[in-house]
C-alpha cells in the first residue's frame, strides 16, 4: 500500500525536535534574534529531503547538522558576524546591572556562561553547545562542523577553557571549596 499523504510523519519530527533546535540556534546565533528564521528554514529544508532519508538515519543529529550549516552560511556574511559578536560582547560587559539583586549564584553563573559562549568564535560556540547543552557525541558534532571528531573535541576544549577563564573575576567562583 502507498503512504497516505494526509498522515505526514514529518509532523512528528517537528513536534519532537523543534523546541530543542530553536534553543540551540538561540545560542549558535549569539542571541542575535535570528533563531526564529533559521529554525524555520532548518525544518523547511529538512522537509524537502526527509523522504529520501534512510529509515535508520539519526534524525536528531541530522537536524542539528542542517541547523549548523544554515547558521554557518548565515554568518559567512562577515558584516553580520561582526555585528553579532559586538552585540554579544556589549552584553557581556554590562553584566552587573542586568542581574537582579540577590539572585541565586548558580543562575548568575549560568547567565555569565551564556554571555561568554555568545562571544566565542563560531566553531567553538557551536561545538560547545552541541556537546554540553545538547549532548551530541563528537562524531555527530564533527558531521555538523564538517571536521574530524578530534577537531570537534578540541573546539569544545577551547571553549571550556575560555569559559573557565572568563569566570575568574566572579567572586562567587571560589570553586575549589565546593564539593
Amino acid at each position, binding site marked *: *500500500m*502507498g*503512504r497516505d*499523504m*494526509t498522515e*505526514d510523519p*514529518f509532523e512528528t519530527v*517537528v513536534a519532537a525536535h*523543534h*523546541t530543542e533546535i*530553536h*534553543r540551540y540556534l*538561540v*545560542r549558535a546565533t549569539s*542571541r542575535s*534574534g535570528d*533563531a*526564529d528564521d533559521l*529554525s*524555520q528554514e532548518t*525544518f*523547511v529544508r529538512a*522537509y524537502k529531503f526527509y*523522504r529520501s532519508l534512510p529509515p535508520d538515519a539519526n534524525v536528531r543529529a541530522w537536524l542539528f547538522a542542517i541547523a549548523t550549516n544554515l547558521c554557518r552560511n548565515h554568518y559567512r556574511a562577515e558584516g553580520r558576524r561582526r555585528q553579532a559578536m559586538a552585540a554579544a560582547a556589549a552584553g557581556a560587559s554590562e553584566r552587573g546591572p542586568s542581574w537582579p539583586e540577590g539572585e541565586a549564584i*548558580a*543562575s548568575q*553563573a*549560568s547567565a555569565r*556562561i*551564556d554571555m561568554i559562549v555568545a562571544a566565542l568564535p563560531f566553531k567553538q560556540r557551536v561545538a560547545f553547545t552541541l556537546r*554540553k*547543552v*545538547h*549532548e551530541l557525541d563528537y562524531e555527530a558534532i564533527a558531521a555538523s562542523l564538517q571536521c574530524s571528531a578530534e577537531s570537534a573535541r578540541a573546539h569544545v*576544549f577551547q571553549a*571550556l*577553557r575560555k*569559559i*573557565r577563564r572568563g*569566570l575568574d573575576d566572579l567572586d562567587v*567562583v571560589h*570553586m*575549589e571549596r*565546593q564539593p
Partner: protein
Amino acid sequence: MNPENRTCREIEPDLVAVAAGEAGASATRGVERHVGVCRGCRAELARYRVLEGMVADLRRAPMAGADPTLARAELESKLADIRSRLISYGLFPSPLGKILIARSELGVSMVRYIDSERAARSHLARLAGDDAVEDKAAVEATYRELVDYLTARSTRLGWPLDLRWAGSDFQRRVLAATAQLPYGAITSYAGIARRIGEPASVRAVAQALRHNPIPIAIPCHRVIGSSGDLTGYAGSKIGLKEQLLSLEGVPVGLRAHRIERGNMYVRFESETEYCVPTCGSLSKTPLAELTLFGLRGHAEAVGLTPCTACRPDLHPLSA
C-alpha cells in the same frame, strides 16, 4: 597550575576530559599522578568539575529569547503551504501504455499518457517546478486503482481530484460536467456545452477537454462529435479512446472511430427512463440532448428504469 610549567600546560586538556568524565584510563592516571603533586592543578580540576555542573544547568535553565512558540506557529503554516503545493508523481506501465500519475494532498492532479519520459517530466516541471517530487510509493495506491479500472475489475475511480491545472473557470465547469457522465455513457461536445448552459461554446468545450489534466478520471473519452465520430483524444491517441469506450461496453470499431448510435440505449435529457434508440423520435434527436449507453446495466446502475413504451427490458438490443 603554573603557566610556566610545561606539564601543567600540557595536562590541561586531560584535566578537562577527566572533569567531563570523557578521559581514558591512561589520561586519568596521568592526571591523578599530576594533581597529587601540583596544588594549582588540583584546584583547577575542581574548578572544571564545578564548571561541568554549571554547564549541565544550561540544559535545564530557561533562556531569555528562547521562546519557540511564535517560530513554531510560523513554521507550521509554512509547512502547510509547502505541503499543499507538493506534488508526488510516478511513471507506471498500464494497459494503455506508459502513464504518469501525479497527486497532491488534495487529490489526483494529473494523469498523462507518456510518449517520452523526458517530455513528461519536463511538462510536470514546467507546471510545478521544484514542488514535483518523484515518489512512486505516494501514488502507488492510486496506480493500483487505475489498473483495476483499466482491467475491468472496477468501474469507478473514487479519487478526490485536485484541479489546480484546470486553466480557467470555464474549463473547470466543463470538466465538472464531464465528470458527471456515468460509466459506459456518452454524449457529444455540444451535449456538454448544453449542460453547462453555454450551448454555443461547442468548440471551447472541445478545447477545454483537449487540455483535460486528469483523463480517465475525468472521462473526456465519453465525449464525442455530434455525428458519432470519436474525433480526437490526447493528441493523436484516438485508439486509446476506442479502448476505453470498448472497456465500458460502448460499441465502437465496426466502422473505425465512430460509435454505433443504433446499437445504444438512450436517455433523453434528464429523463428517469432509458429507451431503445428507435423509441419515438429519438433517432432524429441531436446527440447533444441525449446520453447513450452501450449496456442496459450501466443505465440501470445510475438509477434509470426501462421506458414503459419501448420496453428495452423486453426487447434488448442484440450485442
